[in-house]
């Protein structure tokens, strides 16, 4: 049986391969952003003796009179209207809650939901009041940093390669086989436990490896980037996509294509 082994190798800085320079205003905590008091302060800043000072390391974003600093990597902060994918860890143990929910959602289930409200201490309340949300069946979950999920109009995508994906704003990405027919009449959740075909499984595995490659090279995740990465990865075997050099190559090609498409 042939086994492949690798020795540790010094990481070369990723940005060398991209070769572009950024025009953003980068700050670190303690830096003065501006002494102009006309601005409103947003996330990542605080007011200190007549100056606006950064409190995280990241890039300054200015929208009219609002200045905020977007940190490179943050824990997910819920905002109203975000789509999240998550696992139920604990449930309220009240009598009527048990009666209503017992049939549908139990602890340990994966669900997709929308953020309804955000409390002052950062806690969010979710709702699944639409047929597109609810319990998730067979598929693959990938956990990535929330800052890599691009904000778009919709986070539910049916990719032309043969699988569907839900890009949760909290960094949880759910890849699942595209349902054959849309069930619009029946609400609730019907368990689909039929075995998924090998072709579908391969598409899903390839998508999962593509997403992992994009994340290691710190690229934003959205439907177009995932699709281009999938297409760039077709010449390689699915398991080869986890090798660093192949990851680099595939993501480089994706980056090129995205740049061409923009410019």
């Amino acid at each position, binding site marked *: 049986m042939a086994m492949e082994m690798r020795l540790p190798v010094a990481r070369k800085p990723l*940005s060398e391969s991209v070769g572009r320079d*950024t025009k953003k205003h*980068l700050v670190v*905590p303690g830096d003065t952003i501006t002494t102009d008091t006309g601005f409103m302060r947003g996330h990542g800043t605080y007011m200190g003796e007549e100056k606006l000072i950064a*409190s995280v390391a990241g890039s300054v974003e200015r929208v009219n009179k609002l200045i905020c600093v977007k940190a490179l*990597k*943050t824990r997910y902060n819920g905002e109203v209207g975000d789509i999240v994918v998550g696992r139920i860890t604990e449930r309220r143990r009240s009598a009527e809650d048990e009666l209503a929910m017992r049939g549908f959602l139990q602890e340990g289930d994966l669900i997709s939901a929308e953020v309804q409200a955000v409390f002052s201490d950062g806690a969010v309340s979710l709702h699944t009041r639409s047929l597109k949300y609810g319990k998730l069946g067979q598929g693959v979950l990938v956990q990535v940093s929330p800052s890599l999920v691009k904000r778009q109009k919709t986070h539910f995508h049916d990719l032309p390669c043969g699988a569907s994906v839900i890009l949760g704003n909290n960094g949880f990405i759910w890849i699942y086989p595209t349902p054959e027919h849309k069930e619009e009449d029946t609400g609730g959740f019907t368990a689909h436990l039929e075995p998924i075909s090998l072709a579908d499984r391969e598409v899903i595995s390839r998508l999962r490896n593509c997403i992992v490659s994009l994340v290691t*090279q710190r690229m*934003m995740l959205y439907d177009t980037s995932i699709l281009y990465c999938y297409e760039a990865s077709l010449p390689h075997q699915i398991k080869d996509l986890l090798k660093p050099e192949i990851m680099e190559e595939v993501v480089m090609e994706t980056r090129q294509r995205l740049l061409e498409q923009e410019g």
Partner: protein
Amino acid sequence: MAGLELLSDQGYRVDGRRAGELRKIQARMGVFAQADGSAYIEQGNTKALAVVYGPHEIRGSRARALPDRALVNCQYSSATFSTGERKRRPHGDRKSCEMGLHLRQTFEAAILTQLHPRSQIDIYVQVLQADGGTYAACVNAATLAVLDAGIPMRDFVCACSAGFVDNTALADLSHVEEAAGGPQLALALLPASGQIALLEMDARLHEDHLEQVLEAAARAARDVHTVLDRVVRQHVREASILLGD
């Protein structure tokens, strides 16, 4: 110790440095993908690793949650191979607890805890090789790790140790200099405002000399800030290039 002069007549220390000179600092952020924030720092031969998780829900008893700010929980541990002699250090021993407490005081002063009420921020620091200035290395590593995690802080926290030999203040003591038994002081500073987050000394030092030693430590901490600032900016620039627009 007979024959070992910590400061020669020409002004050189045991390792060839000048009185106010720092050891070489190398640091890296984002060394662990699994943690929210992580960093590794080498100050001369002292090596420390810091990992940060949070802010997240309070683990354990909910009663400990503070209604208006986040709880900062620091744990310090020293590897068995970190000193000259291999020594097993159980987790709850006095030195670890004391260091953990010092780190907690330092970071509660710097992290903007009011932005995350009822949550917890965990900072774990481990010393992999101890050659003097372990508190300083831990604070510097933890600062970088907290920055890597994106937790809002008032400013960097830069720390350095200082000693006093032959009427001269020495900055960034190595193990040999610490073991010689003179007074030593550890200072953690917020550089932009010059505010002191923590000042610790448990030796005898004449008050006339205190200002000189304190000044040397503050200057050294600002030098550390210059290095860490460069490391963070480089890291941020690289990452933002990759993310694109």
